[in-house]
């Protein structure tokens, strides 16, 4: 599976990749109705996709509202501009552990009650922590909006973090880590690979859930400090979407969230990556693995870091290079019988540096070294000749064709709006994203490819079954 961008994943499955959830949790004869002119405009990127409005409360809390009356349901999301990237040194996993503790009660809501009350009202609630944000969310029948706003505002203002719940919850987090990572050889490798590229103590190279020893070391005081530094109104984004009216949302936000006291925020410190990867080559043998895997990731700019203009070009590049059938990697590696899969992935919507990643699985009998040489050849040719106009046009068309599908459902709008704004991006990045993608030019793609694939710090990794020969390093 190609690792897809947030936008694509959200539009297709209402899921946020690379984020941890609190609970586990899945030739027409008679023409149909044609899209109204405003839908065409949205598709073209000329009109805002969600038509969201935004304002800021006196205490600094930013509110975003996008109305949709399709079903009598509202989504209520509170995003904090703090994720695992803000974990203190030696305390990786703090943001995620704290997210779990937010369900242990607040001044007026007893421990565990929030989820039970939401369920009793026919709603769904959960939370997730990514590298860039932590979000708490409920989806409820429209008339239940005030209830969930009241409970969320209550834990915003004063979570209890009862001392006797910290140790049992640490056990839950450790089981979550065992389930997600320690008992899955591919997840173990991915974690080691990211640490090899960025460094195991760099904010970008630590796992979101945290290193096991550091999860064990987190104290209750660490959690309280994290709250004090990051969970301030000026560091949060409240997103309400669905069947509600703007005036009512303004009134409720002021009444229920306006009383959360304004506090100073510790700004994010997303240090620049090292000029070299911690390890340029990572070879892992794992007895549980039955199929070899190849990974190569290069440090890359994002919409918030480095040459930001390159972010949209890199998204187009990842599609034409390794975005499935029709892409260069698919033609050169999959259609020739060298690989069962071959993909490129890039997500520019990130705080700080990000990665441009190539991955492939060799077909049985294909020497890993041969596959790696073929990957190198694809990249070399791209860097030498650049992509073609036809490739770029197709990438732009295919990436943007489904933009409107984000309106078909209730999960995409709040997640796209909230994660972008909490990552420091303007609303416009979400509302008009197809326009940005369509504006990318061929020289921009060629330049971005040279910058990232032609010399940026990178790590190459192989996950191999026990006993498989180590592929020779390219000379």
């Amino acid at each position: 599976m190609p690792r897809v961008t947030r936008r694509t994943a959200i539009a297709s499955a209402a899921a946020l990749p690379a984020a941890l959830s609190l609970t586990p949790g899945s030739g027409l004869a008679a023409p149909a109705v044609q899209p109204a002119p405003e839908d065409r405009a949205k598709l073209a990127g000329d009109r805002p996709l969600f038509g969201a409005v935004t304002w800021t409360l006196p205490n600094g809390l930013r509110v975003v509202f996008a109305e949709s009356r399709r079903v009598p349901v509202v989504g209520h999301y509170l995003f904090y501009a703090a994720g695992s990237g803000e974990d203190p040194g030696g305390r990786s996993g703090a943001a995620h552990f704290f997210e779990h503790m937010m369900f242990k009660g607040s001044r007026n809501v007893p421990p565990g009650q929030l989820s039970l009350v939401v369920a009793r009202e026919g709603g769904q609630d959960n939370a997730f922590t990514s590298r860039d944000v932590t979000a708490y969310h409920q989806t409820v029948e429209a008339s239940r909006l005030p209830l969930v706003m009241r409970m969320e505002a209550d834990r915003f203002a004063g979570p209890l973090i009862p001392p006797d719940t910290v140790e049992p919850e640490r056990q839950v987090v450790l089981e979550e880590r065992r389930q997600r990572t320690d008992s899955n050889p591919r997840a173990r490798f991915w974690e080691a690979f990211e640490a090899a590229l960025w460094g195991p103590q760099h904010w970008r190279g630590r796992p979101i859930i945290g290193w096991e020893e550091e999860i064990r070391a987190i104290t209750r005081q660490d959690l309280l400090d994290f709250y004090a530094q990051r969970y301030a109104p000026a560091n949060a984004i409240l997103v309400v979407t669905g069947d509600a009216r703007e005036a009512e949302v303004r009134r409720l936000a002021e009444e229920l969230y306006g009383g959360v006291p304004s506090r100073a925020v510790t700004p994010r410190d997303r240090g620049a990556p090292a000029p070299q990867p911690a390890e340029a080559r990572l070879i892992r043998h794992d007895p549980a693995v039955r199929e070899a895997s190849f990974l190569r990731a290069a440090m890359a700019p994002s919409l918030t870091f480095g040459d930001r203009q390159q972010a949209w070009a890199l998204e187009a590049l990842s599609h034409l290079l390794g975005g499935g059938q029709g892409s260069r990697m698919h033609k050169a590696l999959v259609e020739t019988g060298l690989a069962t899969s071959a993909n490129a992935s890039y997500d520019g919507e990130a705080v700080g540096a990000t990665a441009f990643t190539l991955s492939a699985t060799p077909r049985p009998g294909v020497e890993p070294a041969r596959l790696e040489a073929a990957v190198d050849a694809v990249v070399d040719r791209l860097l030498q000749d650049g992509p073609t106009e036809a490739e770029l046009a197709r990438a732009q068309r295919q990436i943007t064709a489904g933009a409107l599908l984000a309106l078909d459902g209730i999960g995409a709008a709040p997640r796209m709006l909230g994660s972008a704004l909490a990552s420091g991006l303007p609303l416009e990045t979400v509302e008009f994203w197809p326009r940005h993608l369509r504006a990318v030019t061929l020289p921009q793609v060629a330049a971005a490819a040279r910058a990232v694939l032609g010399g940026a710090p990178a790590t190459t990794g192989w996950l191999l079954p026990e006993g498989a020969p180590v592929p020779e390093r390219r000379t």
Partner: protein
Amino acid sequence: MTGAALTPGLTPATEAPRAFALPIQVVEANGITAWLVEDHAVPVVSLAWSWRGGAALDPQGEEGAAAMAAALLTEGAGPLRADAFADALRDEAISLSFGADRDNFEGGFRALADALPEAVRLARLAMTAPRLDEDAVERVRARAVASARRALETPRGQAGRGFWARAYPEHPAGRPSSGTAESLTALPAAAIRGAIGRQMRREGLLVCAAGAIGPEALRALIGEVFAGLPEGAPPAPAALPGFRGFGQQVIPVASPQSAVVFGQEGLPAEDPDWEATQVMLRILAGGGFASRLMHAVREQRGLAYGIGAGLDVMFRRGVIVGSVATENARVAETLSVTRDEWRRMAEQGPTDAEREDAVAYLTGSLPLQFADSRRVADSLLTLRQNGRPVDWLAGRAARLRALSTADLTRAAGRVLRADGLSVVVAGQPVGL
């Protein structure tokens, strides 16, 4: 337990939620009956369809034939080779796909209204003129073999495989529906053609649609998509035998954590206690933080990240299946807690408050389940696969509210078997 513990400011809403209604139109065309939920708010249409069969029709030794066939239908059809077919779909963001599960062969697409003619053309081509080019077959085969092998790399994958193989040793339901590395490697192209020939029929077809399309347009669409299929119906799959209890089995896997799959015989979809069982199982095991098992295993003891169980429906029968993962040293305790809760529910049933909470959730959350066109079409299709009448959903809230605590207690006593819980543990559990 809820409500009362809250301060006045947090008292749950008293205003009744707006009544939920999902008007379903029944559309007949070309001998096919379709259910339609029409909604023009967003210019998107989803269509979902299925036949009985799927992996259940794979002959012995040809496991994975239906799944391979499903994957190959979108790997080139008519004049379009695989890459051209993929471009045709992706240029218009059409998500056409097919799949073979244990007892059904399903197809479906979601498309913007503008792209509907193209979606129809490609769906028809895929079903009536799949190319099955040799290079495409080999590519899809390599991918399927790799994914079958990868599925066994984790304790969870091993436990799931072991559970079904033991529960249904002599029926296709006990085999992996997408095949094994061995069966897929040996599968001749003729077996894939055979699977398509068995399954792609004009009869036995269930069709559901949702989104920006009216009944007239849907009638025309059905004619175009399905009229080219050959006459006749797919053969009936072998009836599902009873769940064969197998006690407790350990599959040794080197891992710090054991994956556990547990379950037991359930009940047929037409059983009068079906909905009582659904509500009872939500209270016991299926309600996230609201369930007894989640409370006992995660909240009270920190034994696992999550635990859940519910009805896994196939062949119009619900089998009760659950899973949990925990550190090797704590598997025994987790299983003991699980069995205790299972027994307590079987013997005593739920409380009135638990019933009220569960029913409030199940009735109140209905609108959330029908918020996008694909889920609407898929949900309607599931209702039809289980033989539900068209007014089943409309009457569901009233039926659930009419259930008494005694109804749930009776269902729990009838269905749950704490001593008959079959368990597969994959890992290195201590003290089992």
